[in-house]
């Protein structure tokens, strides 16, 4: 298992990330651009040294600056898929994949056999003898995936492994990856931007912003109770922070929401975009929360339209195309937004870990 506390200073940026992954567990590391995901991955791989904390894998201490312990990359039982592939340009796809097995002592023949198997698994049996520059972006990405998997590592590190794959191959490769990870006794860290990847592949999510963990937990908890704006957007919820007093929550900017649950103290309030109803005039029905809002953007979202709204609170609303046609939505238009108290979710803001407040 992986047991680490990664501390890396890079100029003005500081990564400070406690991380444990049990054998067989898949942890997805999510975060906005520049949050430090790649930095964490490189520190685990031994490509940058820790400046603090410690790192041990399968009971071995790999990096511990305090105790002057350091293991070079090539002696760590890892496999890495890099964000920009880094396929060796002078080797064929086959030899790229066979490179790792060769280093593990397999004969050239056996290593090539294993490589061919892996290439076939990622759907590239026909491109075995292509040089990387003759591969398209997605083909290259799949070779990189095969190359990292072929060493059967104790810790598998994936930096956006599916980002460049097309929708179809992505589905297949994701299923393959899921299959492989299921049969994989080691730990896996998956860096991704794609919530679907995270939800499908990971057992647990770790979300970092600006080098620090802002939320952590199993998929269900994180998606149900986002704690930062980033996570809320990731899972598609509107999220606000405020102070609860019974059924009323006063948000940090003064606006007040009525909620279904009772709470007291610092809380988060979340509701889905589909819970937001739009009306041309002030509604006087059941919804307890109504406010005037101005349309700032409209995008298709699946079968529906997602409308971005400004006002006392910024909010996203999902409505059907039929409703949109009825309301004759245009950007700049002002109308009324309504959310039923029963549609809101409220949960305490006192976080189990070092969470930094976000509006």
């Amino acid at each position: 298992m992986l047991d680490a506390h990664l501390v890396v200073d890079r100029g003005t940026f500081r990564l400070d990330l406690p991380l444990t992954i049990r054998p067989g567990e898949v942890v997805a590391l999510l975060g906005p651009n520049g949050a430090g995901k790649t930095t964490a991955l490189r520190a685990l791989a031994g490509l940058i040294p820790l400046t603090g904390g410690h790192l041990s894998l399968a009971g071995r201490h790999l990096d511990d600056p305090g105790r002057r312990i350091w293991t070079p990359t090539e002696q760590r039982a890892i496999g890495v898929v890099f964000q920009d592939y880094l396929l060796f340009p002078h080797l064929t796809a086959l030899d790229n994949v066979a490179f790792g097995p060769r280093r593990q002592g397999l004969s050239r023949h056996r290593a090539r056999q294993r490589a061919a198997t892996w290439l076939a698994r990622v759907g590239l049996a026909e491109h075995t003898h292509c040089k990387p520059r003759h591969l398209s972006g997605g083909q290259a990405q799949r070779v990189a995936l095969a190359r990292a998997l072929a060493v059967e590592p104790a810790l598998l590190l994936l930096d956006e492994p599916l980002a460049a794959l097309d929708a179809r191959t992505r589905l297949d490769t994701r299923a393959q990856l899921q299959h492989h990870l299921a049969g994989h006794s080691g730990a896996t860290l998956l860096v991704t931007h794609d919530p679907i990847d995270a939800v499908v592949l990971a057992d647990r999510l770790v979300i970092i912003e600006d080098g620090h963990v802002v939320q952590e937990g199993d998929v269900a908890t994180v998606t149900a109770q986002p704690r930062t704006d980033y996570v809320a957007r990731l899972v598609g919820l509107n999220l606000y922070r405020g102070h609860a007093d019974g059924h009323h929550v006063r948000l940090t900017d003064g606006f007040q929401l009525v909620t279904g649950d009772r709470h007291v103290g610092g809380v988060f309030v979340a509701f889905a975009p589909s819970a937001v109803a739009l009306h041309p005039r002030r509604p006087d029905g059941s919804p307890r929360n109504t406010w005037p809002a101005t349309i700032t953007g409209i995008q298709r979202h699946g079968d529906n339209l997602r409308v971005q709204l400004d006002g006392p609170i910024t909010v996203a609303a999902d409505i059907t195309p039929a409703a949109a046609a009825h309301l004759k939505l245009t950007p700049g238009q002002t109308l009324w937004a309504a959310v039923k108290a029963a549609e809101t979710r409220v949960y305490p803001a006192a976080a189990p870990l070092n969470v930094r407040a976000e509006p």
Partner: protein
Amino acid sequence: MSRRDAVLARPDRSTPPARTRRTGRVPVALLLPAALGLLFLVLPLAGLLVRTPWSTLPQRLTEPGVLTALRLSVQAATLATLLCLVLGVPLAWMLARVDFPGRRVVRALVTVPLVLPPVVGGVALLLVFGRQGILGGWLDSTLGVTLPFTTTGVVLAEAFVAMPFLVVAVEGALRGADVRYEEAAATLGAGRWTTFTHITLPLVAPGIAAGAVLCWARALGEFGATITFAGNFPGRTQTMPLAVYLALETDLEAAIVLSLVLLTVSVVILASLRDRWLSSR
């Protein structure tokens, strides 16, 4: 899978700097030949140091002419390097980036001055730029420019001998550079010239620096072509290697002293220059 078993506990006391921690151990198969190579290059220098007449060193160094020759050497080598950069970098670019007919032959021709014994190179320069040479007479009569036996002649002779080093090194660097950055520049509206100056040159700066170092050092040590084309006039064309040659005629020790002066100056200049260039990125 033995690599999974080795965990290297480093016994050293001091906290190692970040860069070395990443690099780990240096394999003996590389360390040994590298050390041998260095030894091979540096040992002869030790031989010279052993024979240096340390007691008489001060008065030998203050002899008139030493400083003059040294200054002339450094100036001429620097000017020659500049000339080589101006002419050689575009030539290297043509060889690396433009697919013209006969490119292979041109590339091989560029190495001609490398192979030509320098004295013959000097003769060849005389045959072209001498007063009776192919171009020399014309230069003399129309422009009033005489090249042989002048300081300009020294620069020319050194440039002739040293330019191939620059061209070959820079071409190698250009071929190693990623052409796609140049493509990206083109999509942003940069013509070939702008792309060359704004993108290509900065990208291959380390390669150009390496080539310029080679070129400068070769020019600094140039002897045969210089003495043949420019003569051996103290203060005008007598560079340090020429002074060393004359000293060898009479006095081995004097020659060694002069060589060491030349070496010291060059090592000091190179050691102070190169890191600044190399860290240009």
